[in-house]
């Protein structure tokens, strides 16, 4: 306990780093994933086909392999980055596929009739998308997207393997020094749990609220 209190400042700083990593990964994969999801439904069958293959491809590869691949591939193509940027990049590329899948599912759940009605009223397709489809689709997608956030937070622990300093890395460092694996790993577990469980609860709450709104 004494040791934990002494290490608390370091662990909090590490938690902050984990949250920064997660935040960057969430924001950018949300933007990229939204774009990819929209392209797959709006830009015609050929683009849609490519996007679906991309989504399938990414989902079939373990995140850790994806991270290692970026770590070794980027320098080979002449991009010199630090492990931190490599980590953010691979998390964004990876999770944008998941966001795209969620967005695509939500957009497709909006009845085609509504799109036809919009077009019949003389709106352009993009306008229909903006004022008819998306406001409904995004509400449907929010709980799943929040769930994905908690997966992202958990997944940031993997970037410690390529040497990015965050909660898992810092905990490991402390364990190596103090030889107290139970105390510190369980403490790290609790920290991750608090963050992820909060997000999951929020997602459940929103889901219930949405269900009410749709009644």
């Amino acid at each position: 306990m004494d040791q934990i209190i002494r290490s608390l400042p370091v662990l909090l700083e590490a938690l902050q780093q984990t949250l920064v990593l997660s935040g960057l990964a969430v924001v950018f994969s949300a933007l990229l994933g939204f774009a990819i999801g929209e392209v797959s439904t709006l830009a015609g069958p050929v683009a849609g086909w490519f996007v679906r293959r991309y989504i399938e491809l990414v989902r079939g590869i373990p995140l850790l392999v994806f991270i290692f691949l970026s770590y070794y591939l980027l320098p080979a193509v002449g991009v010199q980055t630090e492990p931190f940027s490599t980590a953010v990049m691979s998390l964004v590329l990876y999770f944008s596929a998941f966001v795209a899948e969620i967005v695509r599912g939500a957009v497709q759940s909006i009845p085609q009739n509504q799109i036809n009605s919009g077009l019949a009223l003389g709106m352009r397709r993009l306008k229909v998308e903006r004022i008819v489809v998306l406001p409904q689709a995004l509400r449907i997608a929010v709980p799943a997207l929040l769930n994905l956030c908690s997966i992202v937070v958990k997944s940031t622990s993997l970037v410690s393997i390529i040497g990015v300093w965050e909660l898992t890395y810092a905990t490991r460092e402390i364990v190596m020094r103090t030889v107290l694996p139970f105390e510190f790993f369980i403490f790290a577990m609790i920290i991750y749990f608090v963050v992820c469980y909060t997000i999951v609860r929020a997602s459940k709450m929103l889901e219930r609220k949405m269900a009410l709104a749709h009644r």
Partner: protein
Amino acid sequence: MRMDWSAVTNNVDTLVQGLLTTLALSSISIVLSIIFGTLLALVRLSNVTFVEAAISAYVELLRNTPLLITLYLIYFGLPLVGIAIPPFTSAVLALVMQHTAFISEIIRGGILSVPRAQVEAGRAMGMTPLKTFGIVILPQAFSAALPSLVGAIVILLQDTSLGAAIAEVDLTMAAKVISQRTATSFEPFIAIAALYFALAWLISQAGRMVEARYKIAR
């Protein structure tokens, strides 16, 4: 960018070795997780409040923490209390602990999806509770849970890659070893990404076949 596949072609034996370890790691963990997951789901549905609360706490904790931390906890922790186990066993333990939690939720959902009236019908026909459960509820529960179960199996397969973090020579570690042996080439990772993808694809195809075969009309 020039690709040089010699790092892969010269080290096929290392990759095959890694692939075999990954397959062993996945299959053992999948079987154990499904067994324990089903048991947990059953105990949780048995309505003993205290046990229910304990299991539910376990499931929520493991579902909301990174696998890597569980893995480190086992790998670095157990030797200190006098239990020396090889990385392979540590990886199996961590994977089973984590995925038992995921799978028990899936099976529980499957069981809950079977209408309660069917239990009563089975009992009314004179079947024992165990028989009712075994031949009426469980087959339908698995059928309902199958699509999510296949997804969970694919995720478990991908999670075996974390074995590389504790120097377990699975497919991912094999690629890392080769890469470091050959002046940090990235080609081995493309090769193993393709292998993981193929395995995930095979699993989902197999899942689809089983689903079609055991589809229970409702």
